[in-house]
């Protein structure tokens, strides 16, 4: 999204601007280095390959991937509606949909509890129907999707607006049906935005903690994702927590950097 903003200043940023920029960069990067410096390398491999760590990593990757799929399935239509249609209350709707962005995840977890919990608005009927969400991996995916969905919607909506609808109009004038236009013109046009949006949601889902803790619970291999495992390890073994944090950072960096590379190639 930032890449699309293309504000080119070919020569002469004011010199002073590098100072706060460097400070900001340092502020973000320094804690990561501090963590890196405190890793107990002699035990690192043993710590990150323990049974509980591997179970948590596997669960995190699996749930975050599932959540990302859900985010794409639900978020692409949402972004399309928000960017291409106009009806009364659209602004209100947009604000509501983006609410999870600003809510503390714990609040999201509580809200989900009162919706999908065993006594919740929908949950109580699901229980009767024999569908149990409480303390299952499904609950984790729901929590992650809830907090990650707005990232995809915001990112994609921005791309859709930037891309404009000229090509869509042209395709429609040439007789393409709305579905064909959406599939063959709109989506390919915003593919880089879609990918970066999906990556953002994946990263957000991977880091989800508060809503999962509040709503899903914490059991090895079922609901205890990597962030929850880190939080729990911290209680007894700070070294293990640091080692696992590093794993999470590395996974996140790989995904973000990898997809940025892909998206920029696709954008060319």
């Amino acid at each position, binding site marked *: 999204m930032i890449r699309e903003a293309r504000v080119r200043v070919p020569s002469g940023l004011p010199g002073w601007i590098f100072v706060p920029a460097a400070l900001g960069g340092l502020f973000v990067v320094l804690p990561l280095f501090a963590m890196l410096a405190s890793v107990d390398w002699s035990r690192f491999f043993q710590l990150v390959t323990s049974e509980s760590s591997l179970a948590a990593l596997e669960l995190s990757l699996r749930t975050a991937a599932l959540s990302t799929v859900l985010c794409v399935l639900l978020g692409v239509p949402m972004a399309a509606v928000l960017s291409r249609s106009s009806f009364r209350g659209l602004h209100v709707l947009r604000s509501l949909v983006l609410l999870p962005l600003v809510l503390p995840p714990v609040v999201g977890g509580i809200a989900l*509890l009162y919706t999908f*919990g*065993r*006594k919740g608005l929908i949950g109580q009927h699901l229980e009767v129907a024999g569908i149990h969400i*409480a*303390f299952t991996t499904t609950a984790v995916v729901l929590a992650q999707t809830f907090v990650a969905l707005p990232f995809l919607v915001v990112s994609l909506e921005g791309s859709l607006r930037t891309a404009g609808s000229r090509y869509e109009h042209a395709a429609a004038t040439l007789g393409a049906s709305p579905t064909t236009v959406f599939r063959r013109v709109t989506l390919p046009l915003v593919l880089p935005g879609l990918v970066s949006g999906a990556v953002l949601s994946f990263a957000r889902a991977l880091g989800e903690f508060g809503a999962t*803790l*509040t709503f*899903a*619970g*914490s*059991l*090895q291999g079922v*609901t*205890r994702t990597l962030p*929850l495992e880190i*939080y*729990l*390890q*911290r*209680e*007894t073994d*700070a070294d293990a927590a640091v080692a696992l944090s590093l794993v999470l950072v590395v996974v996140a960096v790989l995904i973000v950097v990898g997809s940025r590379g892909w998206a920029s190639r696709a954008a060319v």
Partner: protein
Amino acid sequence: MSWRRATTGAAAAALGLGLLTGCGSNDDSGASGSAESASASAPGGDITVFAAASLKGTFTELGQMYETANPGSHVEFSFAGSSDLAAQLDQGAAADVFASADTTNMTKVVDAGLVEGSPVDFAANTLTIVTAPGNPKGITSFTDLNREGTLVVTCAPQVPCGSATQKVETASGVDLTPVSEESSVTDVLNKVTAGQADAGLVYVTDAASAGEKVTAVAFPEAAQAVNTYPIATLSASKTPDAAQGFVDLVTGPDGQAVLAKAGFAQP
């Protein structure tokens, strides 16, 4: 039996205190008299107390008592998990008093050379089963938790309440299969009050503070895992006399009365 006598005495004192504090902050004669006896020697001064999250209710009350007894003094609290607090102290956080929910985390702080003198045990806590109000699943014993279709939530073994749970399991020979192992006792309690879980294992004091939102089911095996709360003044304190004054209040009769009222046992 001396324990029982002590609790009765504490309960009586608690009743007296309840009456006094109930009179409002303007009450001068009785309240100050009572609190003075607890910390007469403690001079005024600002102190910061790091206390386990489970002490929030009781220590807040004791802090007010301390401030009333020592005009001009101010007690600042930081309530969090004992291991969080121990880690913060280890990283150089400034505090005058540390009250831990277990001996493990106090030992960490002692080993780091941060404690002045030696810690004093001031309270004890045991586990209890909590269920939805009215105990709809009819759980009456520890073994009942393993009944088919009963969703049980416990603390993870890494945290104090979880290690207590493990001790009880080992001692009773009953292996629980919880649907979730939470990282704090509050999370366990919340899963039960929200109706997500049928039963949970929490401390007696947590059950007491949840009031009517849960039904507590006591079980004899709980005696296998008694959690002891130690308190200590910290060597970095700039107001060691005031810090000691607060510790004296907690370990003295008034402090013990407040703790007993909240469901804490004597160590």
